[in-house]
Structure formats: structure tokens, C-alpha cells
């Protein structure tokens, strides 16, 4: 038997979470969250290529909080299977051999449950290496679930054990701490984001948000693209510092974004009635790394005509007038691909995880890893509260350590 946090179906709690979710994190982690600490049989998938893992550390991601507070669009209800153990940012060790990897190997998990993991013929996405675009995430030999951490058969990182397929596993290099390794999955997403941003040489880029998503996106943009100026929107002092270390040219407060972008791009500003101002002109590329309607609208308002707005993370509903009027390319960026076709130079032909593993070895990221706050499973309410207010509390990443009891 093992301990795990389980997300279950509770419509009343979903509704309550939706009503108060983002505003009252205390209530969310109190009665409203459809989450409970339970004792379960360890998950086991009896298929070739599958093995059991023991969780060492598992991060709390914005999308986890979204799901728990009912903020997530109902869109996703069709691609998850309840009850499930959340946790898709996972560093773990193999309990048994897994093909070429011997038991005891420390790995991080690419959470996307692709055709390979499901034991079906590769779909078009998987066949081309765009595994994050897999169209079979609801079929095959597993319950529906877009990722580990959203599927009832595989378990997730918020439990002491989980099951994963060889195609998902990436060994962690010697010398990396668990805290560093836990950042590989979010960094892989950032690598993918940076590539989806379509940045050309010297493009001006805006990154709206300086939580882990925004910081890693900044880092990846700086290292993988020839972006010129990167302006990062940050609320808190420690975010400002990290953003600068991670490659921001300028860090601005949310209230100053439009002004700064207007100035540095020589744009014109107009003021519609009863609404916030926007720019004619602006950055070439904006990345929304928050997912709130305000952040997304900022990205839309600050991007030049014909520019690109990248949705990194689940977006809230927003006014899309700018996308139409300014002919913006709005692109989504979800998880990461086994094969990132846009990688060039020394990274060409490698997977996002591979590149992310290398990037996480950088000093600045190692320093950030030191601030990772880990909680035992039974202190989950505290952990979620902390994750919810991470920016304010000076943390970038909060995680569970299911091995620990205090």
C-alpha cells in the first residue's frame, strides 16, 4: 500500500472552487478542493515497456492548481479520468528494470501519454515526433488522460509510487540534485514555448509573468533564440532578480508594461472608451506566461500588427479584438515534443527534454533550484496554499516529497 493525494469527482466542490478559487486560496485548500489523502495499491500497468517508479519529488504546477480550483475549462473533462493522482513534474527512481534502464535509475518523466505508452499505432503527431500533439490520449490500453497526473491508471507524482512507460523516461545526469531535476519538465515546456514563439533575430519579446513558466520561458528564449530585447513582467522582488539572471533585458511591474513597451518600441498608444489602452506598434512576440485574462490582454495589447502571441499555459477568456484587428498570430504551446523540429545549432535533432536537461545544469537555474520548497504529502493544504501564493512568498517552485513524513 502507498500514500497518495487523490483528486476525485465532487461537483459541489468544483463549483465552490470555481467561485472562490483564485481569490481565497485558504478556502480552496480547505473544504473546497476535491482532493484527499488516501491509501492505495501502487499503480501497475501490465504492458511491455511499463515499470514502477518511486517518487522522490513532484512539483505543483499552475495547471494543477487550476484543476483543483475548478478554474480549468470543462474542455479538459473529456481528456482526464477520475479519480487520479496528480503530479506531472516528477523525479523518481525505477523500482524495477525498464528495458535498457536498470532498477534504481533516477529519472524524470515526460508526462504526455502518447501512442507509444498506450500501445497503439502511432498517430500522425506521434509519428512525426510531435508527441505533445498526440490524438490518441483517450484510447488504447489506458484510461483517458492527457498526461501522467491526469490518468487514473498511471498514478502521479503526488503519490509514493507511480507507473510510467519507457518512452516517458529521461535519466537524470549525475550531480543534479532532485530539486534541479524537478525543474526539467517545466524547462522542457519552456523550450517548446521558446521555439513556438517563432522569434527572429533581434525581435523584441515580451514575457508576461515571472512565475516558473515565465522565468523558464525567458531562459529558453535567451538561450535558444536570437531575441533582442526581452521585457519581463514581474510583480515581486525575487522574480525581478531571477528574471534578470535568466536573460531579461528589462523587468517591469504589471502597471508599467504598456508604457515601457510603447517607449522602447516607439509605438503609439490609443485609449478606447471604458477600457484599457493598447498600442499601435509594440513587441514582435509576446508570451503570456500567466494565463489570466489580464495577462493575455496585456500580451495582445502590446504586440505589433502581424506579431505573435504565445499562450503558454491554459488561457482565461479574453478580448480577442486585437488578434483580429492587428492580424496577430495566436499560437498555443502545450507540453513538449519528443522531436523539436525548430531546434538548431548544437541542439538540432534533440528532444525538448534533452535540451531542458542541459539548460537546468546552468548556474542560474541551480540557484533557483535551491529555493524549491518541499512538503510531505500530509501537509498538502499548506503546500497548495504556498504554491498559490508562491510569487508573494518568494518561492518559484513548490513540490511534494512523498518520502518525507515531516
Amino acid at each position: 500500500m502507498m500514500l497518495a493525494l487523490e483528486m476525485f469527482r465532487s461537483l459541489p466542490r468544483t463549483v465552490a472552487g470555481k467561485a472562490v478559487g483564485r481569490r481565497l486560496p485558504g478556502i480552496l485548500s480547505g473544504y473546497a478542493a476535491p482532493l484527499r489523502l488516501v491509501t492505495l495499491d501502487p499503480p501497475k500497468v501490465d504492458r511491455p515497456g511499463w515499470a514502477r517508479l518511486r517518487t522522490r519529488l513532484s512539483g505543483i504546477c499552475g495547471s494543477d492548481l487550476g484543476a483543483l480550483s475548478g478554474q480549468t475549462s470543462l474542455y479538459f473533462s473529456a481528456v482526464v479520468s477520475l479519480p487520479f493522482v496528480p503530479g506531472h513534474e516528477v523525479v523518481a527512481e525505477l523500482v524495477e528494470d525498464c528495458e535498457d534502464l536498470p532498477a534504481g535509475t533516477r529519472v524524470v518523466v515526460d508526462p504526455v501519454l502518447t501512442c507509444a505508452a498506450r500501445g497503439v499505432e502511432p498517430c500522425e503527431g506521434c509519428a512525426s515526433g510531435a508527441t505533445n500533439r498526440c490524438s490518441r490520449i483517450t484510447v488504447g490500453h489506458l484510461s483517458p488522460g492527457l498526461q501522467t497526473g491526469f490518468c487514473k491508471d498511471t498514478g502521479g507524482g503526488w503519490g509514493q509510487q507511480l507507473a510510467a512507460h519507457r518512452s516517458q523516461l529521461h535519466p537524470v545526469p549525475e550531480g543534479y540534485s532532485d530539486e534541479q531535476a524537478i525543474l526539467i519538465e517545466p524547462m522542457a515546456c519552456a523550450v517548446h514555448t521558446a521555439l513556438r514563439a517563432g522569434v527572429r533575430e533581434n525581435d523584441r519579446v515580451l514575457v508576461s509573468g515571472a512565475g516558473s513558466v515565465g522565468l523558464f520561458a525567458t531562459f529558453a528564449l535567451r538561450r535558444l533564440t536570437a531575441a533582442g530585447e526581452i521585457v519581463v513582467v514581474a510583480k515581486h522582488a525575487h522574480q525581478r532578480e531571477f528574471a534578470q539572471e535568466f536573460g531579461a533585458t528589462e523587468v517591469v511591474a504589471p502597471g508599467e508594461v504598456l508604457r515601457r513597451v510603447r517607449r522602447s518600441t516607439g509605438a503609439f498608444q490609443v485609449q478606447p472608451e471604458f477600457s484599457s489602452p493598447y498600442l499601435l506598434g509594440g513587441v514582435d512576440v509576446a508570451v503570456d506566461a500567466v494565463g489570466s485574462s489580464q495577462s493575455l490582454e496585456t500580451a495582445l495589447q502590446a504586440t505589433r500588427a502581424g506579431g505573435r502571441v504565445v499562450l503558454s499555459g491554459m488561457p482565461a477568456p479574453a478580448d480577442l479584438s486585437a488578434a483580429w484587428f492587428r492580424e496577430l498570430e495566436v499560437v498555443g504551446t502545450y507540453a513538449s515534443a519528443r522531436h523539436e523540429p525548430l531546434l538548431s545549432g548544437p541542439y538540432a535533432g534533440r528532444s525538448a527534454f534533452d535540451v531542458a536537461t542541459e539548460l537546468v545544469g546552468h548556474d542560474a537555474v541551480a540557484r533557483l533550484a535551491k529555493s524549491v520548497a518541499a512538503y510531505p504529502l500530509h501537509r498538502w493544504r499548506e503546500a497548495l496554499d504556498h504554491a498559490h501564493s508562491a510569487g508573494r512568498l518568494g518561492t518559484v517552485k513548490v513540490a511534494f516529497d512523498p518520502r518525507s513524513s515531516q
Partner: protein
Amino acid sequence: MTRPGFVLEVDDRTPPLVVHEGLGFRLESFPLGTRVVYPPESLPTVPDVEAAIRDALLHPEDSAPLPELLFAGMRLTIAFDDLSLPLPSMKAPDIRGRIIEQVLTLAAEAGVDDVEIVAANALHRRMTAAELRHIVGERVFRSFYPQGLLYNFDAEDRDNLAHLGTTDHGEDIEISKRAAESDLLVYVNVNLVAMDGGHKSVGIGLASYKSLRHHHNPKTMVQSRSFMDHKKSAMHHSAWRIGRVIKDHVKVFQIETTLDNDVFPKPFDFFQKREWEWGVRDQGSMLAAKRGLAVAPQKLRHKLFHDMRSAYGLTGISAGEVEAVHEKTLERVHRQQVVEVQGQSDVLVLGVPYLGPYNVNSSMNPILATCMGLGYYFNSYRHQPVVRRGGAVILYHPLNEGFNQLHHPSYVDFYEEVLAESTDPAVIGEKYEQQFAEDEWYRHLYRTSHAYHGVHPFYMWYWAAHAMDHVDEVIWVGADRKVAARLGFRAASTLADALEMASGTVGTSPSITYLHNPPQLLADVR
């Protein structure tokens, strides 16, 4: 006979003294021994203004009378000082309008019909029609404005600028093309302080950024000691070099006027008197004003002060050749404003009032307050600053009025972005000035709206450069702490606290001088 200005030494009989602080004032008890410098009372004024104007035009300095310079078929341009002068605005009719009317009368008699009237606003904001009308008067406004012959100078209208060459110091001279190509340029000035007028009028009022950047920069401003003494001011040296080149191209007929010190109309005229001489009525008005202001919302206080119009008297008018005219003007300005002060002190105390040249009908934002205190008032000296090198300046202003988005859009960016990085005029000038000066959006707002030019906040900051260079400590009494910190200064809630904070620099019993203005005074520090 008018009483001259004088220096009072605070003793135990001295009542609390008025100190201006934005949209209000306080009564401050100064430490014993504080020197208080009062401006002279108003000079006698010209009894018949119309006659004085006519006399000046007909008997000019070093020039033929105006009628002899006018001829049919000529191109005549009349330029005038914009709304930054005088402060507060003059009760109608404005002296400039009265002069322009007489100039136009003489022009009509000479058969001149190509006349344009242009506000010499340089990089200041465009005035509204109502503001123009107030200055030139109803008749002139109605005859010229609708036809586009009365307008604000546009320093960004490339097609209508003329480059007249450079000075022997390599300074570009680029001014209004219309002015440059006129057969005669008549300049109508109002001189409020010794810094105004002379070659500053045409050479700066009608010039573009390309020309202004040569003297409006941190280096020149730090080396201007003082701005009120054109012979010791590097900025004026540059303006004089430029003016002399302009003279080779354009015939300038300069008309300069000086005003008395009657800046506060009833019921605020108690501000102009010395506190221990307040009668019962003055006491009453002061208390009423103080109580009224204390309970009035900021908006109302703003309106109360900005609606104030002053009944200035004309103390003199001179016309003719620029430098000869300016000599006469300075004589009169000095007679009205100079107060002799013996020696420097450790601390200089200044009240910053609600109004400066760049917030007429607008708000006194923190940058303008700095310019007013550390630019204008600090520099109101001759020979040497009132405060010794390494001393402290204590200013009164809440620094709370925020930014007027219509008038000062680039100020907001300057405050948020530039001052956040550095408050050193040289550093920010080097890194940001050109960007702001050439920003298309600011250009657009300057040209088509009522915004100060993008580079203007830099100039305001440079103004304060000499003071910041000269003293070691700047403390604002009653100011918003966060704002003061952004500006690179400190805030205190009382004078005692400010003196305590300054004690590390000037000791625990410093010598203190309080410049009791407005009205304007010029400390002649021996």
C-alpha cells in the same frame, strides 16, 4: 518710497512664518537665529501703460523707431513669450496683448499686411485657443487666429524650420523659418526673473531640439552660476553666441517688460506682507484661507489656486536692440528683486508653491516640484549660492499631485523608467535623452495635442543639476516618502526632523537661511 528687501533674524518675538507647500501653506516656527530673506515690496509702476508702450516703440534703444522699420510689402513676424510667464497669469488685459495691438497699429499705418503672430513656446506645450486669447486679447485673437496667422511655434515641423548655421562653438542654430525669413521680427517679452529675455527670447523660444540640446544639457546647466546672471551662466553664454548669429540673419526688434511684485490678488495678498505686520484683516484672510484649504478636496484647492489672476503693475518697458534692451530690463528686475545677503549658510529652506512655469493650468508633478525648488529657487542668487557647498536644502512640498497625462506624458515614463534607474543628470542624459527627444509618440502629442515635448522632463531635471551637485543633502518636508526616494531625496514630516536628518552633514546647530518667496527674490550673496 518702496521698502527694499531685507534679511530678518528670527528671535523670540518673531511669529510663525508662511511657507508655501504646493496647494497650501503652513506657518512654520523657525529656530532662533534663522535668517529670513524677504523680497522688496513692489516698485512704483508706470502710470500710463499705453503711453509707455508707445514711447518705447518710438524711442527705442540702439535702434531706429519701430515705424521706420516698417514698410509696405514687408514680412513682419511678432513673437511673444508663452504662458509660462508671468506666474500666476496676468489679469486681462495681458501686457503682451497691449503691446501687440500697438505694434499692429503702427504696421497698419505703414501698409504692412503680411503679419504672423507666433507664440515662442519652444518645446513647451501648445497653448489652447483660450490661453492664446488671454495673452493677445480678444481683438487680435479674432483677427488672426481663425486664419491661422496666430499660432503656437512647432519645433517638430521640419518644413518650417530654418538652419542658420552654427556658432564658433559648433552650436546649431535652427529656428522658426517664418521668423528667420521675416524682414522684421518683433519679440514681445515679459520678464519675471533675470534669467528671461535677452538672447534667450528668439534663440531659445523659437528654436528646435537640435539647437536647444547644445545648452540644455547637464554639463552646461551645472556650470551655470547662476541662471539669474547671464554673464556667469554657461547656458546664457551659449544663448548669447546663438543670438549674435541670429542677429546677422534677422532684424530683431526686442520689446521687454518688467512687472512689480503684486503676484497675489485679494484675498491672498497677505502672502505678500511680512507676518509681524499683518493687520486684523490679514490675520482673518490667512485663517480663512488656511481653514478653507484644510478642508477642501485637492481638486478644489487646485482650482482655487490655478484660477488666481494677478494684477501686476508694469515697472518698465524697453524696446530696440536685444542686448541694449536687456541691460535696461536687468536693471529693473534687480531693483525689484535683489536682496543683499551676507555670506552663505549651512542650510537653505525653500517653500515650493503650487505653480511653476510648466504647470500653468496643470499639476505640479514631482519632477516639476524639483525643478521649481532646486532649479528656480535654488538658483535665485548672484555671486554665490545662498547655501554653502556641501550644505543642505530643505524644501516644502507634498510631491503628491501626480502627472497630468495630457500635458506631461513623457514625464510619467521619465519618472517610472529613467529615475528608477538613475537620478544622475549626466548618466540619464547620456542614456535616455535622445530616445525621449526622438520618440514619435511624444512628437505626435507635442504637435497635435497639448503635451510638453518628450525631452522636457530631462530639461527640468538638468535644471536641478547644479543644486544637486552643490549640496550634499536634499530633504523634503511633508513629502510622500516613496516619491522623494524615487527622486533620490529624503522626506521628513517636520522641519525639526529634517534638521535632525541633515545634522550628519551640517551639524546640530547649522546656520539656516529661509528664502521667503514667492514673490520672486534674488539673493545677492556677498
